[in-house]
């Protein structure tokens, strides 16, 4: 029972991080149809930003997280402007190749600047709680709480503000939105700024628990793609629920069966769902 509770807690923690990354990706891929495989590399850059701000410049953890979000929002919108906008009218496959190029640039760049070794955060939020025999560190509770807050803010932003409405309009019908006078180029840059800021948040949250290294984005981006397909392209609730499903499947199968077949279970879920519903859980027919 203790093992079960522990694994569920871990699953929720992992699921929060996956949800944040997948939310950013579902905006970029689901709404703009840009298969931004470089999303994971930007997540890694966000983790390095937070790490360096805390260790080298002595920022507090929260301030570092906010600065990293802002910096990544800027990088994300620049990536859209410089790399993806010229490819706007081409097949998504072209953007896919450009994204792979970006991965090489960011990951190998980080490898050359920071070296291949794993960076450890100075101890933060080390309080420990015991719930029904399971141990939970304060950082893990923080991850879930911040994720819930960010999702709420995102929801309010999209549903209640004018700028949010332009994103939703673009998602529903791009030509229609353009005819209503919405500047698609601005929406694209905004979506990228938002998406990469979400990835940076996720990275800043998980970095004190997992270590920071140049390859950290790879496995996460694969899972994020699986999550948004699992939930249905462009569906925000789909990305959130898909993220938690993925986190729980991963931690429960890791706890009870084997960690080496981790990915088989995680990706097997998608294969099973697609076999039953070819357009994902929340996808339109």
């Amino acid at each position: 029972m203790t093992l079960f509770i522990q694994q569920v807690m871990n699953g929720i923690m992992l699921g929060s991080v996956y949800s944040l990354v997948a939310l950013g990706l579902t905006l970029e891929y689901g709404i703009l149809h840009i298969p931004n495989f470089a999303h994971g590399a930007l997540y890694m850059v966000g983790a390095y930003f937070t790490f360096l701000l805390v260790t080298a410049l002595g920022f507090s953890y929260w301030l570092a997280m906010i600065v990293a979000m802002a910096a990544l929002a800027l990088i994300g919108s620049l990536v859209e402007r410089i790399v993806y906008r010229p490819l706007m009218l081409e097949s998504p496959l072209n953007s896919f190749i450009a994204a792979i190029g970006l991965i090489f640039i960011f990951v190998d760049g980080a490898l050359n600047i920071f070296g291949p070794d794993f960076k450890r955060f100075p101890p933060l939020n080390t309080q420990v709680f015991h719930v029904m025999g399971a141990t939970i560190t304060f950082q893990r509770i923080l991850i879930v709480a911040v994720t819930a807050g960010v999702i709420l803010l995102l929801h309010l932003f999209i549903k209640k503000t004018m700028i949010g409405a332009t994103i939703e309009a673009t998602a529903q019908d791009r030509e229609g939105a353009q005819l209503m006078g919405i500047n698609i180029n601005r929406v694209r840059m905004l979506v990228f700024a938002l998406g990469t800021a979400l990835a940076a948040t996720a990275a800043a949250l998980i970095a004190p628990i997992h270590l920071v290294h140049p390859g950290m984005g790879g496995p996460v981006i694969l899972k994020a793609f699986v999550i948004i397909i699992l939930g249905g392209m462009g569906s925000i609730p789909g990305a959130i629920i898909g993220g938690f499903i993925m986190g729980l499947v991963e931690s429960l199968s890791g706890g009870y069966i084997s960690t080496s077949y981790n990915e088989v279970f995680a990706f097997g879920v998608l294969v099973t769902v697609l076999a039953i519903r070819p357009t994902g859980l929340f996808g339109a027919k």
Partner: protein
Amino acid sequence: MEKEVRLFSIRRLIYLLLLILALSLPLYVTSRFFLHILIMCCIWGIAATSMNLIMGYTGQVNLAHGGFFGIGAYSAGLLMLKLGFNFWPALILACIITVFLGFLIGLLALRTKGSYFAIGTMCFNVIVTVIIENWEDLTEGARGLLGIPRPSSIPLPFGLEISFSSMASNYYLVLFFLFLTILLISRIVRSMMGRTFMAIRGNEELSESLGISAMRAKLLSFLISTFFAALAGVLYASYIGFLSPEISDYHVTFELLIYCLIGGLGTMAGPLIGAFILTVVSELLHGVPFPRLVAYGFLLVVITIFLRGGIVGGARLLWSRYSLKGKR
């Protein structure tokens, strides 16, 4: 589409020259290193050409291709090492095994469309790699398969034989299979079957309304491309002699996709040009003082932005401008 069919059109002349060049290369390229690069170019050329059939001509973004390459390579390696098979039967059997697995995967994956198909097949690719990595009793896991033999000699009448011990003979072997692949796939593309594939690429619903069974045609294209991916894998396994799980990784799929796109997707020459140029470029970049992969990344981004239709697309654009000028 040429209207005039002459015996000596420019196109045929170019093909003939290329054929002579390819056949005579080992006469003046004696460096083992260059021959090695050429052999790798041919193997990746086969894999990229086969990917082009499902992706470029049928319009299905199959991201499990590297997985099939790996399954082919591992099946051949295991058949030869563990069951003591000869190279030639192992080649055929490995392709059959891969096509059978491809049939099971395709049946499931082809129910989905567009991005769902792309990411779904990518999942299969990851699952294949994880299984190869962890099924240690069968595949030796991360240690890899060592000592896969080169093809056995083919006996000829009068006591002669074709042996595959020298680099040049290995080059001719992969070149033969590359020509075979190009010949068969270009035949398929020009046949009624190829037209069906392209109709599905254009508009699946519309093609179904014309009485095409889209599922059957897609599955067929998927299986043919799987077959040639396995062939490339078998050639790789026996040439390199060593296999590790990374050879089935999704990174291999991405690399093949890059070859197809940089060269020009949906053209016969594109994937070959892409495979040859990028294999050579990544070898040449070894001498660059700048971080190699960062340079490669910049190259990919710049080429995709400025050369939309790939190298073949760019060349066609130039050619049409040139011929327009001539007519004026």
